[in-house]
């Protein structure tokens, strides 16, 4: 009976780690989201945070702004990344992955430095301080574009070329082949790109703070404020829960649960 034991055993440290530092902390968020401090300073079960969030116009606005910025940024990422990935994957060039590296190379530069560089450029052309929303969206696209390029490129590269030949053989033109064969088969790549861009675009407040001149509050920033500035863990946790629901829904919409990590963030980086 000892024989299979040692291999499975290797899982234990990581399982313990996951329980202590992933699952337990997430449960804490749930706990704080649905509790409130009463007059005596004790924690009681409460929906106050939930009601508080949805009855506050400013929080509604933050939610709206976050989702809008995120949707626009994701849209532009797809718009830029798809043709690019298509060109790279279909170029027929043996070293197309070298070319790809050229496009994702900036990813290895620290992202705060990258955003700072962009800030300086926007400052030079006079955008900074004048177009906060535009700047933030540009920043999100700039920062997360590689996360969109990689999965789409990988998916297109995987595409069985005989399928395209079969399509042409059956009488489809180049355009029809693209819309009826290439596009549907590359959608899994687009979907995993969307999940990797959409969520950070709603929460990465480093971008919105740096480029939006601290005038834009997105969900991520709100959570940070409630934790650090207002020391209200309960509301911070509630916003996190709402964020988690949005993440869950977006994954459901893009079939993110079906993907087997193949395209998960950075998996093609090295």
């Amino acid at each position, binding site marked *: 009976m000892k024989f299979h034991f040692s291999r*499975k055993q290797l899982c234990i440290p*990581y399982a313990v780690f996951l329980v202590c*530092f992933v699952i337990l902390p997430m449960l804490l968020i749930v706990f*704080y989201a649905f509790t409130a401090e009463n007059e005596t300073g004790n924690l009681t079960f409460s929906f106050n945070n939930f009601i508080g969030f949805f009855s506050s116009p400013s929080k509604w606005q933050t939610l709206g702004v976050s989702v809008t910025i995120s949707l626009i940024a994701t849209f532009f990422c797809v718009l830029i990344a798809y043709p690019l990935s298509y060109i790279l994957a279909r170029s027929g060039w043996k070293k197309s992955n070298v070319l790809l590296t050229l496009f994702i190379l900036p990813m290895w530069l620290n992202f*705060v430095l990258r955003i700072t560089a*962009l800030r*300086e450029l926007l400052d030079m052309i006079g955008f900074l301080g004048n177009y906060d929303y535009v700047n933030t969206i540009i920043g999100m696209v700039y920062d997360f574009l590689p996360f969109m390029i990689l999965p789409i490129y990988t998916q297109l590269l995987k595409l069985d070329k005989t399928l395209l030949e079969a399509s042409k053989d059956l009488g489809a033109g180049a355009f029809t082949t693209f819309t009826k064969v290439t596009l549907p088969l590359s959608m899994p790549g687009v979907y995993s790109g969307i999940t990797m861009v959409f969520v950070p675009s709603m*929460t990465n407040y480093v971008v919105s703070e740096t480029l939006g001149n601290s005038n834009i509050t997105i969900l991520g920033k709100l959570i940070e404020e409630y934790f650090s500035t207002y020391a209200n863990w309960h509301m911070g*946790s509630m916003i996190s829960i709402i964020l988690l629901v949005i993440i869950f829904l977006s994954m459901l919409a893009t079939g993110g649960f079906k993907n087997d*990590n193949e395209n998960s963030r950075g998996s093609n980086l090295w």
Partner: protein
Amino acid sequence: MVKKKKAIDSLSVIYCILVLTFIYAPILLLMIYSFNSAKVIGEEGSFSLKWYIALFQSEKVVTILINTVVLAFIAATLSTILGTAGAIGIFYSKKKVNRVVQIANQIPIANAEIVTALSLALLFSLILLPRTYFSLIVGHLVLCTPFVVTSVLPKLKQMDNNLYEAALDLGATPAQALRKVVIPQIQPGIFAGFMLSITLSLDDYIVTAFTKPKTFDTISTYVYNAVKNASKSDLPLIRALSAIIFLLMIVIVIVMMVKSSSKEEEKR
């Protein structure tokens, strides 16, 4: 037909160049001005290395650089060990355990970084631990280890399961079989996981900000705060810093690519 194809080809090239311009313009601008005496980009100035000199003379910045790199190596090493062992354990576990651990592993990957950061901050606040190097390392492990697991698991799946059995058959103990056969087989995945961990750790701001000790800074937290507090005096230094890091990264990436491509050729 030929004409049409040529037109498409040149359009493709133009498109690629446009995207490259978008991607590289900020970095190039920054690199050019890092060699300029002007404090603010766009201002008049002349060629100068003074920001580079200032950078290396600034004890603060050098410390931060060392902090960042040391943290990345510690986090990557620990998460590689934890994640590789975890992946092997997951792979050989029963279906149920396998699924549960894999789902738990996906949580930090799918989660927004801010939620991960907040959850850890709550944990450390609750058990009344002040933010220490320990909490920072834990934060980075939560960030990196799941990616090590996802890099190693596919290699285990690709591996011929008979290899492990063959090693036992030839007299190796389970531990010897793991060391002499399984680890060498999944080594590319382990390496990829390690490199990915380094990248993630170097790149991180949010989790670091929530778990770091007050007096400790990485490049990310230092630059973010410098920019946010509009300490204009630091910006030229940051330009020089970015230029150095970017060039260093390019060198590393090129070396890695040449190495991996020569390895692939060897295989053929």
